[in-house]
């Protein structure tokens, strides 16, 4: 797991949580203003990608909330509609029961008076339908304790009424009209019927109340949903517009940068071409007068050399030497400039082999010198063989040159350290060394730390070394102690750089 502890986890802005407070002292003067500003600062510090992500997250969360609330409201509406249907059914049923009870009582009385069997039909149908009525009533009031209690009461009263009427009918059948004369006029279940009417009225009133309550609830819920949808849509629109603005702003900025880069690339190319023309001109035109100076000095020496005194001869020689030196400087400068522009070859260089051939080529410079060499096995690195050769020719030549004052020179070449992706090679000598305070001048163009009459050279070698190593994606540095020696380090990548 590659956890980076310094990376703060992204806090979704919806939480509105301010970044962890560093100031632990409870301060009374904390106003909401700084907290708001810190959220804003936090947002500003986000990368553009995270800002866009935060924007889209907000939109997504908004859609979720709207969806959830709409779902809940719709569920309420559906439930209310179901309950309304049930209430209407109940009202209808109550009406039927009421009528049935009325008719049973009235027709039963007519029978008592007339003895006509046809009047018994209502009573019989009620007795038959009673269980069905009660079952429906219980079904439709299930879940409402008050109504259920009323249904129980209703059941008792209906049974009482039917029982009373059954008794009266039996009496009429046994003793004729005279036996029931009094009952027939008054009605046998007058009390029960009144109670039944009262309970049914109560139940109806209750249901009507429930209907009204649910209607209010549904209306409110619908209004809420509409308002939420409208507000939500507006908010989403604003958010999406902001995200669009962010993205467009970013794209515009990137386009601008790309145009700028292209322009700079073109300028750089033009500058490079100009530089090439310049160095060509330097190469060609600056050499001619130098050749003339040296040439005419030589001709003069040839013509009148015999007659000149030593002082004049030395003057003439100095003119020649200076011209030659300048010629060398120009050549070095051209090589240095070419080193920066030249196409790089990307192959593998065997450093071991490279050092061996360099030492072989330098063997003439080593005549009359006593040098103790320590050379480690060196690896292969990706790079340009000609350029890398120049690096090590310079470093080894320097080591040989600056140990020339030692009776026994010691030069070591080896691998200082090897890590993933790069390798550091060093060239160490026991020569005259250098003062570390001049380190920054060491790799500069035409910078020399020694007098011209001490050690020869134009001071371009290490500048070339640095330029080549940089072009290989590496680093170069040095350590030295005056009169004790110097070590030069070259770090090169072991993987091919991506182009």
């Amino acid at each position, binding site marked *: 797991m590659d956890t980076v502890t310094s990376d703060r986890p992204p806090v979704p802005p919806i939480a509105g949580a301010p970044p962890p407070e560093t100031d632990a002292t409870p301060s009374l003067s904390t106003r909401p203003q700084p907290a708001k500003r810190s959220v804003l600062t936090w947002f500003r510090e986000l990368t553009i990608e995270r800002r866009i992500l935060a924007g889209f997250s907000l939109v997504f969360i908004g859609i979720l909330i709207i969806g959830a609330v709409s779902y809940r409201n719709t569920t309420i509406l559906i439930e209310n509609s179901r309950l309304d249907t049930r209430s209407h059914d109940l009202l209808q049923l109550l009406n039927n029961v009421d009528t049935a009870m009325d008719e049973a009582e009235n027709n039963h009385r007519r029978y008592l008076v007339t003895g006509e069997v046809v009047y018994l039909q209502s009573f019989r149908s009620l007795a038959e339908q009673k269980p069905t009525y009660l079952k429906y009533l219980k079904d439709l009031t299930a879940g409402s304790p008050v109504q259920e209690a009323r249904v129980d009461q209703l059941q008792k009263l209906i049974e009482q009424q039917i029982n009373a009427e059954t008794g009266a009918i039996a009496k009429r059948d046994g003793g004729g009209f005279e036996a029931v004369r009094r009952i027939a006029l008054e009605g046998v279940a007058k009390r029960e019927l009144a109670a039944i009417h009262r309970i049914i009225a109560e139940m109806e009133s209750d249901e009507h109340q429930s209907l009204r309550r649910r209607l209010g609830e549904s209306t409110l819920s619908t209004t809420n949903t509409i308002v939420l949808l409208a507000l939500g849509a507006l908010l989403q629109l604003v958010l999406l517009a902001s995200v669009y603005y962010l993205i467009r702003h970013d794209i515009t900025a990137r386009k601008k940068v790309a145009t700028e880069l292209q322009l700079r690339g073109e300028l750089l190319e033009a500058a490079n071409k100009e530089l090439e023309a310049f160095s060509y001109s330097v*190469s060609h035109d600056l050499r001619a007068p130098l050749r*003339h100076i*040296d*040439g*005419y000095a*030589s*001709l003069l020496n040839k013509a009148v050399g015999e007659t000149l005194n030593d002082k004049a001869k030395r003057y003439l020689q100095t003119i020649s030497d200076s*011209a*030659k030196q300048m010629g060398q400087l120009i050549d070095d400068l051209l090589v240095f400039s070419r080193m920066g522009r030249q196409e790089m070859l990307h192959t593998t260089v065997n450093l071991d082999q490279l050092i061996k051939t360099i030492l072989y080529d330098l063997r003439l410079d080593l005549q009359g010198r006593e040098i103790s060499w320590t050379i480690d096995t060196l690896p292969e690195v990706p790079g340009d063989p000609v350029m890398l050769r120049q690096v090590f020719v310079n470093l080894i030549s320097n080591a040989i040159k600056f140990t020339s004052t030692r009776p026994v020179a010691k030069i070591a070449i080896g691998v200082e350290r090897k890590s993933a992706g790069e390798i550091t090679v060093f060239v160490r000598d026991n020569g005259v060394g250098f003062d570390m305070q001049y380190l920054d001048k060491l790799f500069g163009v035409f910078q020399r730390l020694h007098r011209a009459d001490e050690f020869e050279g134009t001071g371009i070698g290490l500048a070339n070394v640095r330029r080549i190593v940089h072009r290989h994606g590496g680093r170069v540095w040095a350590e030295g102690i005056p009169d004790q020696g110097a070590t030069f380090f070259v770090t090169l990548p072991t993987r091919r750089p991506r182009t």
Partner: protein
Amino acid sequence: MTAAKPILLAEDNPRDAELALAAMEEEHISDKVVLCHDGAEVLDYLYCRGQFKSRLKGNPAVVFLDLKMPKVNGLEVLRTIKSDSSLQPIPVVMLTSSREEKDLAESYALGANAYVVKPVEFHQFLTAVKELGTFWGVINEPPPEGSASTN
């Protein structure tokens, strides 16, 4: 012996010309040198026109060509020589200050026979010019006159 054949030296810079002649002098071949001051003069010489209208017919033993010259530059002269069947056999040596790869490549592509960078050091310059003059003007056997391919 090729004593009769002249050495054509194209050099716009009078000092360079003088130094080159001084070098040839030491080898006693300076009297064979014909000096041209620009590319146009070289072509006039080769085609026997202008100031060289009445010169003795025949190609020079060698042409030493500077690259950078007024009017017609070295590479243009080289192109003309190597694309003309009667001049094409003449050995052409580029004698120049430029070490630029571009010039080298172009010269050889056009058919230069040699390319010599003028050394800054006079002693080396002397040696180079002397050797060139001796080799191309004396040692080297130039192509016979009329050897130009006719096909």
